[in-house]
């Protein structure tokens, strides 16, 4: 029963938030959901290191599940902190808690039912979160996710159904390639459909179309959850399915192909984006691609994917937190001089962007090294080529934004050489609220910690993969 603790905490948090929403002050719902997620994270954290088992007959309770739960809860908590749609939405906290619940469910899924339900719970909650501001871009983002999500869900279900038809069981364990299943065309088709369905949630090209729109139109918090938590738990589901051994070369080949395409197209389309959030949307596509090619190259380094997630999630959360602070859909010009005006925001955004770019001193660098080690040792030259080109492109556009953070003066003006009393430039951005500061600081510290001292993290994460 203890194994279900995090799920129960999330569910209770969601329920309490939902019930409190109509009458109680808005802060109460937030606290309820937040406490639920914090409790879930704490429970998941305390369970690290316990022997693996089953939380329920269809739900695993192993390190991977705990890691996914932790990541989903913490991302949810962070997103909750800066979820402030323009008309205050009382449903928000409950929805985030529900999304985190879906994530927790998905990360423990070893069976078709929780896989599907977890995924759809996340998707539906996200749709609801996307539309919270009720503005036209938000509604449009929700609508696109609804349509695409439905189609993706159908494809996933189709895959599950076909696998079920071929094997008669819904447990992943039953899909292990036995003597009867090897080369079974039904199973192969099932793998194809499954891949398409998960690729949609993972925002791999060409199933990625919703992602940049969602990042741009939706509230930053919702986009952050979509980019960080849901991506992480889907990655965990992919890890589990990869470990099962679905028919090859469809699974790995397809993943590599989609991954390479995502790296190239995602990075390419982000190249000169002016909007910070949209750039992050495309970059999230590219990062999905990186994770996909790691997965496709087999799991030689077990900590590679978890580490990538650990480095990626805080970077995205921090970047979108800053974006949320800058107003709806901030452009590159809005970032000018931010590092001087708001050092913490600018600094952590810098860290986040250089982590995403894969530069040293932050977690992204180590993650990139894992990526290259994985694909090089697997000899996946297509992926290597894509990753190299993608990283080069990425360096360009991430640094574009970073440089802008430090440019104080618009082009054409020059500061006097020795101003005796430099008038302080007017501060355009409001001060950060305390919780946002905490989120940013935590994310920045995590990025630095994973970048500067990755040893313990890598060690802890290496036991995750079954």
């Amino acid at each position, binding site marked *: 029963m203890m194994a279900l603790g995090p799920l129960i905490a999330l569910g209770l948090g969601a329920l309490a938030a939902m019930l409190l929403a109509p009458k109680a002050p808005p802060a109460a719902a937030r606290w309820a959901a937040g406490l639920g997620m914090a409790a879930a994270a704490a429970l998941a954290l305390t369970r690290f290191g316990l022997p693996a088992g089953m939380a329920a007959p269809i739900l695993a309770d192993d390190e991977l599940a705990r890691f996914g739960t932790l990541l989903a809860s913490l991302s949810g908590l962070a997103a909750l902190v800066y979820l402030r749609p323009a008309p205050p939405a009382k449903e928000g906290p409950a929805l985030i808690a529900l999304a985190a619940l879906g994530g927790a469910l998905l990360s423990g899924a070893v069976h078709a039912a929780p896989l599907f339900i977890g995924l759809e719970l996340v998707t539906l909650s996200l749709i609801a979160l996307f539309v919270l501001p009720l503005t036209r871009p938000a509604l449009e983002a929700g609508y696109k996710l609804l349509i695409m999500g439905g189609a993706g869900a159908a494809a996933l279900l189709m895959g599950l159904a076909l696998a079920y038809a071929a094997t008669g069981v819904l447990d992943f364990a039953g899909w292990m390639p036995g003597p009867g299943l090897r080369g079974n065309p039904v199973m192969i088709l099932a793998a194809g459909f499954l891949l398409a369905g998960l690729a949609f949630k993972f925002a791999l090209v060409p199933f990625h179309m919703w992602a940049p729109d969602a990042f741009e139109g939706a509230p930053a918090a919702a986009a952050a959850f979509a980019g960080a938590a849901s991506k992480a738990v889907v990655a965990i589901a992919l890890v589990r399915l990869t470990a099962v051994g679905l028919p090859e070369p469809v699974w790995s080949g397809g993943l590599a192909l989609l991954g390479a395409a995502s790296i190239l197209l995602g990075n390419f389309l982000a190249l000169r984006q002016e909007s910070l959030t949209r750039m992050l949307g495309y970059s999230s596509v590219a990062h999905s691609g990186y994770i996909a090619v790691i997965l496709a190259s087999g799991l030689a380094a077990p900590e590679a994917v978890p580490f990538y997630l650990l480095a990626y999630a805080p970077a995205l959360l921090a970047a979108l937190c800053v974006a949320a602070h800058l107003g709806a859909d901030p452009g590159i010009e809005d970032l000018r001089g931010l590092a001087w005006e708001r*050092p913490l925001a600018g600094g952590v955004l810098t860290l986040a962007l250089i982590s995403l770019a894969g530069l040293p001193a932050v977690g992204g660098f*180590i993650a990139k090294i894992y990526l290259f080690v994985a694909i090089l040792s697997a000899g996946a030259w297509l992926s290597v080529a894509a990753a190299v080109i993608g990283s080069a492109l990425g360096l360009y556009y991430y640094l574009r934004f970073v440089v802008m953070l430090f440019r104080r003066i618009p082009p054409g003006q020059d*500061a006097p050489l020795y*101003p*005796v009393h430099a008038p*302080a430039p007017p501060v355009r951005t409001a001060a950060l609220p305390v919780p946002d500061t905490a989120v940013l600081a935590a994310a920045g510290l995590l990025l630095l910690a994973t970048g500067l001292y*990755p*040893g313990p993290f890598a060690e802890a994460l290496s036991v995750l993969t079954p």
Partner: protein
Amino acid sequence: MALTALIVLPLLGGVAALLAPRLGRDAERWLSIGLLAVALIALVVAWTGAPPEDAPGEQWLAMVRYQYAPALGLQFLLAMDGLSAALVAVSLVLGIISVIVSWNIRKDSGLFHACLLWTVAASNGVFLSMDLLFFAFFWELMLVPSFLLISIWGHGDREAVALKFLVFNAVAGLGLLAGVFWMAATAPEITFDAFVFAEMGIPPVAQVWLLLGFALAFLTKLPAPPLHAWLPDAHTMAPTAGSILLAGLLLKTGAYGLFRFPGMLFPDGFHVLAPFGLALGAFGTIYGAVLACGQTDAKRLVAYTSVAHMSIVLMGLAGGVHFAMMGAGVEMIAHAFSASALFLLIGALYDRVGTRDLRELGGLMQTSPRFAAAFAVFFSAALAMPGTANFLGEALVITGMFQVNWVLAAIALVSLVISVVYATRLLKRIIFGVPSRACVTQDLDWAELGPIVVLATGTLLFGLLPQLLLVVLEPAVDAALAPLARP
């Protein structure tokens, strides 16, 4: 831990200094001084702590090893012996001095102090890293703040000069990088640990090539002719603090590299290439001294004397004998003090009169006796007067040269004679003569006198009580020479 603080503190302090101007006037300056002072304490802690148990040699005073990403061969490995400790101490002191002498810099002063701190951090990283990946990283990192210092706060044609500095050193740094990665690639399992490389048994031919690559980087920083062309320009155009750090720290990193690695990693290569190093040093010391005699810009003059003195260091390092190596170590420290002080003085002069042209200066003796006295003291140091640490260094190098080759010793002695020409020329033009149009009315103030006194104390203390320095350097020299002993 204290060792890590020596690098991390200024590194993060730089970031803080970037933001500190928001806290109040001069906050960044006090912050920088405070951080460097704390780093000095950390140095003392590391120095006096118990010697590390897992160190691969007896000379190491402190050591830190974090496995960074063991699967990828990345680790954070710092080790400090007497030489590194002395150089780190010098770097911290010079850092504080740089802050003090730049008190009137107002343009982007947050970034300025960040650059100062980062320079200190990166050079400390160079002095302490025994993991060559980190060494190379810090080596390249050092260029960035210096580049900014010159290109933003410099004088004259500062941007072109900064670029020249950057191009020279970055291109030369490639030799180091290539060597490091080659060694890492040929190691039995991927690593950048210098101690592992030292025991790896690199084939002699490879050693020659690797040493050439390393030496390219080190000699450019040193700088030895003909790779010195960046130095006079960079010193001349840099702000005072930049010149101090360039002369006091950056040049020392090159010498440090030549001190530490050739003997440790490439003993066979050293035996092949040492004669060339000696020849280069002998040429450089005369060449730098002769060119110094002809300069009209005071800073350029001092810059060329740096070439001459660092070439003496090169001779000492390439000599491969105990005396010469000791001399090189002492001369490194001594030159850090004396050259920094001369740059400080000339910078202070420039701040007052707006020119460094020797033909326009003069008469300091009459108008500002403290200035003149300070010049005279460091002029004696540049001359290697007995009683200054510079004399100790040069005498030891010359002694060593007598053991290696008398011709080299003779050349070093000739450079001693030429030093009289340029030094008296400097004095004649600056402190003697009739007070000129560009004449100084304001004598040194406390903010300048303080650093001067510190530097003078260092120069004279180590000159009169050299044992303080020799005791510290001796184990490092022994360890550096041990692999060179032919069986």
